[in-house]
């Protein structure tokens, strides 16, 4: 199983960490949109989450239902230790690669 993360995977993992206990589809999508200015579709978010889960980097459980969701339950995702490790790895790789370059690239 590939240990390296794609960019979207990084973004989704970071969003989940930012969200803490409240990591589900809408939160992840909104967090990415708010911080990066991109607007990923739910299909993209879900595909990425499914891939991360398949890789064993996140795990999920079903939560509570609310009225504005049409009475459907949320699926909460939390990052597993393996996910944190993978994220750390890939962020370090980025930093390493950027070192010594134009100062504007150095601090991500």
């Amino acid at each position, binding site marked *: 199983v590939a240990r390296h993360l794609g960019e979207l995977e990084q973004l989704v993992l970071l969003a989940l960490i930012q969200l803490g206990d409240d990591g*589900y*589809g*809408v939160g992840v*999508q*909104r967090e990415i949109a708010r911080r990066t200015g991109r607007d990923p*579709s*739910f*299909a*993209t978010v*879900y*595909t990425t989450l*499914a*891939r991360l*889960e*398949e890789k*064993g980097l996140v*795990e*999920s*459980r*079903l939560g509570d*239902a*609310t009225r*504005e*969701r*049409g009475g*459907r*339950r*949320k*699926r909460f995702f939390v990052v597993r230790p393996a996910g944190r490790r993978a994220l750390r790895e890939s962020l370090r790789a980025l930093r390493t690669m950027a070192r010594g370059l134009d100062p504007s690239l150095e601090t991500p």
Partner: protein
Amino acid sequence: MKPRRSAPPALAAWLLGHLLPEGERESFLGDLEESYRIAILPSRGRRAAARWYWGEAIRALLARRPGRAVDPNAPRGRPLTGTGSDLRYAVRQLVRSPLFAAISIALLSVGIGVNAALVSVIDTRLAHPVAGVPSIDGLVELELQRIRGANRPWTTFEEFLELRDRQRAFDHLAAVALTTFGETPIVDLGDATLEVAAVFVSGDYFAVMRPRMALGSPLPVVDDRRAVADPVAVVSYPFWRARLGSDSAVIGRTVRVNRVPVTIVGVLPRGFEPGRVPHTVELWLPLAMRPLIQSPPDRTGVTWPGRLPVESVVDGMTGRLRPGVSVEQATAALGAIAAGIGGRFRPEMPLTGVALHPLGDLSDSELWSGSAIIGNVTLLILLTACANVSILLLGRAVIRRREVAVRLALGARRSRVVRLLVVESVLLALLAGSAGILVAHWICEFFNARFPGMGTDYALSWRSVSVTLAFAAATGIAFGLVPALHATRASVGDALKSGFSATERHSSRLQHSFVVAEVALSMALVCAAWLLVGAFRGAAYEQQAYAASDRVLIADIQFSRSQGGVMFTEQRADALLSEMRARIARRPGVETVSFSSGHPLGIRNGNFVVVDSPERTASHAMEPVGATLVTADPDYFGTAGLRLRDGRDFTRTDSAGSPRVTVIGEHVAARLWPDGRAVGRTVMVGRLAVQPPADTVYMPHVVVGVVAEPSRSSRSLGSVYIPRLQLSPTADPRVRRDVSLVVRTGGPAAGYAAAIVQEIHALDPDVPVLDAASAWQRYYESNREGIAMTNGITLAGGITLFMACVGVYAVIAFGINQRTREIGIRMALGARRSQVVALFFRDGLRLALIGFVIGIPLSLLAMKLSLGSGSGEILTPGPIATVVGVLLVVTAVASWLPARRAAGVNPMEAARSE
């Protein structure tokens, strides 16, 4: 905010709910709905939010995502074997080849849509054979049988009363009396005066029919024998729409019918055309009012033995059978009564029995025969669509052989692959079916909007929708299954190998046969459709169309009508017409003015005459030729826009004292002098004396012109025109005095109508001027439905041709695109671009030619089949030649454009393509 308004698009949600993998469904839908309600809807508005939701849904359905491996709480999603995943795969396949999908769906949906619309129309009519009558149980029309089979066996009023009062089989038995031409009443609406087709019905007619009135109430039940104290009428729905401005306050309004004040009490339901009452009837009056309305006009010269006075005749009878009484019992009972009456009222034609015709039996109606042709054309459209799509699908299956082979090699079961392919084509067909329903809906809407007075409200029926969807699904299975079985049968090794090397020769041979089949089939189908369209166009409405023009104004001037006691003597009428002519001709914008008693779209009073040439009369070998004698004033033919084949128009010198002249119709000329010029010869015009002494009196006239007549006037009589002033004093006064004013104008004629009517009334306010309108308006008004039908069926023929063109183009272009690699190799080996293009061009034309050779006998066969038996003489090479020409152009373009494009790309890229 209402909860319903804030819900996301239901269809998209439904699709997601059924197509998403189960493990993801709930949370995904929830997330989407939450976002939709909380973020998107408040900030973007309903429309944009719905668009956003659909966008998300489509992306989700198309997304390629791994199966959910770990799913602790929900039941595990099924592996990629469900129909859901097949469907997703199919959607992806179609999205990936949008042109193929678009062409297939467009072709099929038009074919299916036109068919569904037709089924709907027929269903609508079958469900409501008499529109506006909720129950037709037991409704029958009654026909009396007489000893001599006269072609118009009128019933006398007395016979009807006797029959009605003695029978017990019906609750009510009602009579209908039509007004015949020349006796139709004139209605003064206050702002307009017009001639209106009317029908008189006996007192209990509406108790028999029980229509659901659009407005007001039906005619009250009255005693037919008593004179009416306060005259009332009901009007037809189209009349209410067109002439009374759809005014809902019309009930209680008084109009004048032949100067008699009549109160309108009701508007009949739309499309109310029961039985043999013509659909043109606009005014319904109680039979008891007939003496009041129809004071006998002067009818000099139109009496013959056995003719009954018009006031004492009824034309038809209608009744509703009592519950439990069968048609046979009623026939027997009324037959006995009729036989008992015998010759009491008409000794020359005693009654012998009755025949009953249940209303709503459509099997011998006009709708049925007209829809037979339309049905054939729509069937041809559907066949063309199916042929095209099946060939496209076959072609596609050939291309996908390698994909199929790979799947099989990787261990997929054959049934599994077949299902995959079938699901794809069923999806295609269902999409086309849905689009087809939309098309059918539009067609119905279009007809309803465009022809509101046409009768029934056409609406999609459930039957047509279900038939359409079933047909779509069946088409999908058939088109998908055959290629799928074919593609999965080939041995895996061969297919894989051929995919890389020898594929071109094999698959291009297949492609070639597709092109040939497509050309031949399309040609046959289009030829058959063309022929049907031609037959339909030729059959109807062309009789008058040649005279329709929007630069010609026609107004009917009927001096013979005595209105309010004002009588016009012949001298007075002649003087008025001359004065009228002079005054109108002086108006700015008016080019010429003339009169005639026999314009195709105006008054058509004519005397039946026999014409003959002196040579023929002398030989006594041949029967004289029958014709209609009408009058025309100077410049008539030029003014009316009727083409003179030979000779000249009437002039001012053709007056009472000058030599007798005539202009004859070309068919009359051809009958009299089959091999020679008619102009300059003498023709004998005579009135056939019906009563003894039966000796025809001829009057010689010199032919000065021959006028064109509509091509298919074989059934109607040709015309013989004589200057009005040269007409013999014994002629029917109506031909002498009732004429159509014909004015040729510089601009659209409708704009002159009001001014010209004013001009006439300034001369004498009592001149009865009726219905001033342009020739085109008159044509359109009288033939609305026919024009609609003709346009519709012509359009249908055009659709067939268009579909054939699209199909041929698609198949050829498709084939060339498949050979992009070959083109690349040729280019890499040094072929010049022009050479490659020429090669494919030649290839395309060669295939098309083979297609034509096969197509010609097929076309002849299809044309024969579509016309039915006994119509061989209509088979002409014209349509075939035209269709070949059109398809040839399409073939040329289809083989030139893609080849040019393919030859234009970098050879390396082309060679890599696959």
